[in-house]
């Protein structure tokens, strides 16, 4: 008999029927009577002072209801408490091409566009800072006052110099990982409406309704209790809808100013400028090694090009250092990282948030180390793997860890050992591993509150309703919440309905980011369901003639353990329980354990559990054109437990897809501050033709703290794919890919050079090391030694 009725079974998404029939209502599908259309006026310059704005010609146009400028919305905000550096409309200075300076509300889109064009804006241009090197020059024009280094971090765990002295061999490498954007199919959309009682309701395609709720309150100067935020089903997020964006605040302000509902939908070009995507990053790595193939020290430096605003960037900076040591036992580790402001659209979190760049660098670096030392690249990793239930050098608490099994299975399935260095010219295989967090262990703003809360109710018909703040962005959170509650209560998914992401109706979930929803909202839902089960068991136990702990919930019935004949239908049991308890409702909550290490900055990286992945990629490189075709990717992922294998495989395949784009095609590039190709045709993403075959291998390590043992799968599987492709290209044609995307032009130049010897694509000089003084941090093993009196 299977352990579970639903958990572990492949089932279609609960929202699939709405999506295949076109009845799911996304934000852009909503309309209210009398609604006005909002268009933003955006800066054509990357950096300038606003000298004058004259809205009069726009206001004179028939059909224009209101114009707002920066003076109307002065309050600064930002997603992180440490970087409150944005304004809904710029008051004095514009900092990137696309920075909004004014907004129009008019009867329709065409009128709003005409009016926006009539608004006169005079600028005094300032010199623009467009690269990391530019930003670090002392003479650079400050973008936010002060220097352009927004954040610099320097942490050392143990003593890297000592580790390198103990090394028989050391190597450094320099890498560049270009920026890319989320390119969700749905353009950001918002609808804002004030009721006659002054309550604002705002529907938005957001991954983080709770943070939007807070920022709306701050910027509009209204208490949160007067604002209701509803997140609509999100048509693709990938991190791009996890920041509060200007149009959401402006639409609300225009609704207040006009007394009409206001709708705003960004154009595709505006979405490219809204961005908040992958930070371009320069990465430098040095490691030391013993003759036995064990690492003695890791020194990692990262330089991030942050764009014009803070966004999540302080967290991103820490993330570039926090998860690099997750997969290996590193005796000594130094991390130095910085993020600069530049006059380009702000970068932020994109699938993997700050970890794909250093992971790419580290795994390519290890491929070179293995070659230098004469090790098989898989064996080199195996000798250094993190152990389950152990701390990392930087105080991450690793619990369940199926990385070794992931490696074994992906290597066996792909035939890596038979293929590596043995395929014909132009074909190659590459290997890499990675790890990722199942939800950030600390909230964005400090508090002791749960990260996720769930309410359950039961109606007189026995229908269960889940109330959760979590929003489904395509990852399948609705399906997971329903499945775990149904499993605990012995019901079918059809017996359960769901109300999500409505701040007036649902308790808080912090948002669909950092791979946290299955783990945190899942745990909260399990707890709520267990409490509901206990309520019902207590009420029906006398009828069944057994103590409450011997009441079983299965197949839509509540029964006495060991005697299936003594049972009530679920609905009858609920009626009995309601008569005993009054209203049937139960709540659950999840707060991650406090896991921060003993140092400043240790709040980024801790998680209740980590997923692990191992990947082999096989590629064919056309040496005439420099084009790379990824033919197949084998991806083994330690998911803890696959609650719904169909959804897990979808997350793995989607991660592989996005990684192929970042490895080979996608680039958020600029020319003098303007986007180099702000359209879906010019921004090259993989089509069906470029998608490789994927073999997904799920490894179940059954995490002790995950819901039914589950861990994350939405982001982790992206991480090893990019370096595996880079290593495969080297195996195929002997060109080291130290920079992505590895576009044909770059590869072709390197292949031409390769005729005379080793060749690579990648940066040649690191930016200045402006990281500041290093903070020394004791390691967990130092703590153990001190405790033991050594």
């Amino acid at each position, binding site marked *: 008999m299977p352990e579970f009725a639903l958990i572990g079974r492949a089932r279609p998404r609960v929202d699939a029927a709405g999506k*295949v*029939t*076109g009845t799911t209502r996304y934000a852009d599908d909503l309309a209210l009577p009398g609604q006005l259309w909002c268009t933003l006026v955006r800066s054509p310059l990357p950096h300038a002072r606003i000298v004058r704005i004259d809205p009069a010609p726009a206001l004179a146009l028939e059909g224009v209801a209101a114009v707002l400028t920066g003076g109307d919305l002065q309050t600064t905000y930002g997603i992180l408490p440490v970087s409150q550096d944005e304004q809904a409309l710029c008051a004095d200075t514009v900092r990137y091409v696309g920075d909004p300076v004014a907004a129009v509300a008019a009867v329709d889109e065409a009128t709003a566009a005409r009016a926006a064009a009539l608004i006169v804006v005079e600028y005094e241009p300032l010199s623009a800072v467009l690269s990391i090197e530019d930003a670090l020059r002392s003479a650079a024009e400050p973008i936010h006052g002060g220097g352009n280094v927004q954040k610099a971090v320097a942490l050392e765990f143990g003593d890297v110099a000592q580790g390198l002295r103990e090394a028989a061999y050391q190597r450094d490498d320099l890498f560049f990982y270009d920026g890319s954007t989320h390119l969700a*199919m749905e*353009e950001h959309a918002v609808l804002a409406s004030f009721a006659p009682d002054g309550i604002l309701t705002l529907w938005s395609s957001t991954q983080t309704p709770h943070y939007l709720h807070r920022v709306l309150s701050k910027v509009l100067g209204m208490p949160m209790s007067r604002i209701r935020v509803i997140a609509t089903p999100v*048509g693709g997020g990938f991190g791009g809808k996890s920041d509060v964006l200007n149009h959401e605040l402006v639409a609300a302000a225009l609704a207040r100013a006009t007394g009409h509902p206001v709708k705003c939908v960004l154009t595709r070009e505006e979405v490219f400028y809204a961005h908040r995507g992958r930070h371009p990053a320069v990465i430098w790595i040095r490691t030391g090694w013993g003759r036995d193939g064990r690492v003695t020290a890791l020194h990692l430096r990262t330089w991030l090009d942050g764009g014009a605003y803070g966004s999540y960037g302080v967290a991103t900076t820490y993330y570039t250092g926090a998860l690099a040591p997750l997969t290996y036992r590193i005796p000594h580790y130094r991390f130095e990282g910085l993020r600069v402001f530049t006059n380009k659209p702000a970068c932020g979190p994109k699938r993997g948030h700050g970890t794909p760049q250093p992971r790419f660098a580290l795994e390519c670096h290890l491929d070179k180390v293995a070659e230098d030392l004469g090790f098989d690249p898989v064996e080199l990793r195996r000798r250094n793997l993190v152990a389950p239930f152990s701390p990392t050098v930087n105080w991450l608490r690793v619990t369940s860890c199926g990385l070794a099994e992931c490696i074994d299975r992906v290597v066996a399935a792909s035939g890596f050992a038979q293929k590596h260095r043995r395929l014909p010219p132009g074909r190659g295989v590459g290997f890499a591993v990675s790890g990722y967090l199942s939800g950030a262990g600390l909230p964005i703003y400090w508090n002791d509150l749960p990260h996720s809360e769930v309410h359950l109710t039961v109606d007189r018909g026995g229908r269960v309703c889940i109330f959760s703040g979590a929003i489904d*962005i395509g990852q399948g959170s609705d399906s997971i919440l329903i499945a775990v509650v149904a499993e605990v209560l012995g019901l079918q998914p059809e017996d359960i309905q769901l109300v999500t992401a409505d701040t007036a109706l649902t308790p808080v979930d912090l948002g669909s980011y950092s791979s946290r929803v299955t783990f945190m909202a899942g745990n909260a839902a399990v707890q709520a369901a267990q409490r509901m089960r206990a309520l019902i068991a207590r009420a029906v136990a006398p009828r069944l003639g057994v103590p409450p702990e011997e009441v079983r919930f299965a197949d839509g019935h509540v029964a006495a353990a060991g005697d299936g004949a003594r049972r009530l239908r679920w609905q009858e049991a609920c009626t009995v329980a309601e008569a005993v308890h009054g209203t049937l409702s139960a709540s659950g909550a999840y707060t991650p354990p406090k896991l921060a290490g003993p140092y400043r900055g240790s709040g980024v990286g801790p998680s209740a559990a980590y997923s692990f992945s191992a990947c082999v990629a096989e590629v064919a490189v056309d040496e005439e054109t420099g084009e790379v075709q990824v033919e197949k990717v084998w991806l083994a992922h330690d998911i803890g437990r696959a609650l719904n294998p169909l959804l897990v495989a979808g997350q793995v395949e989607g991660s592989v897809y996005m990684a192929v784009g970042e490895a080979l095609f996608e680039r958020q590039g600029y020319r003098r501050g303007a986007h180099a190709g702000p359209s879906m045709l010019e921004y090259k993403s993989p089509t069906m033709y470029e998608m490789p075959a994927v073999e997904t291998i799920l490894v179940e390590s059954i995490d002790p703290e995950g819901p039914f043992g589950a861990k994350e799968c939405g982001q982790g599987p992206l991480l090893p794919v990019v370096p595996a492709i880079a290593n495969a290209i080297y195996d195929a044609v002997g060109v080291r890919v130290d920079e992505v995307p590895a576009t044909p032009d770059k590869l072709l130049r390197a292949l031409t050079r390769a005729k005379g010897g080793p060749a690579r694509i990648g940066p040649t000089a690191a930016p200045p090391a402006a990281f500041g003084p290093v903070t020394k941090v004791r390691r967990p093993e130092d703590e153990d030694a001190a405790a033991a009196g050594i």
Partner: protein
Amino acid sequence: MGERLALSVNGRLRELVAPVSTTLLEVLREDLGLTGTKHGCELGECGACTVLIDGAPALACLVLPVEVQGKEITTVEGLADGALHPLQRAFMDHGALQCGYCTSGFLLAAKALLDRTPSPTREEITEALSGNLCRCTGYLRIVEAVEAAARVPHA
């Protein structure tokens, strides 16, 4: 000010008045309330607004309604005929959708393919659907779903 239009949409004649420059996508979504057809770029680059015009796939954001009067327009709302179309069922069962924003475009492009090529090869499916972008699934399950739907015997 506008043009008087008579459009046959999902087998029903719909009459409306709209400015002549309004696209079919805008008319479907805003005048006829058929919001299942999605708006992804309005430049003919993403495929999210794919509809069928006399059975052939077309990008509704690039079509002017006056061009398609007298032709039969099919949107995702017209796909299920009492029961779900085999493609809709297969997309659900095979996990061929996640966020769902590209789904209606894919379904209609796939329907056009299956209507003219009932048992397509993988290459034919790729060719027919490569103009539709999806950022969630990596496409593999969409191909599988189309193959599965092609195996369903038509009543």
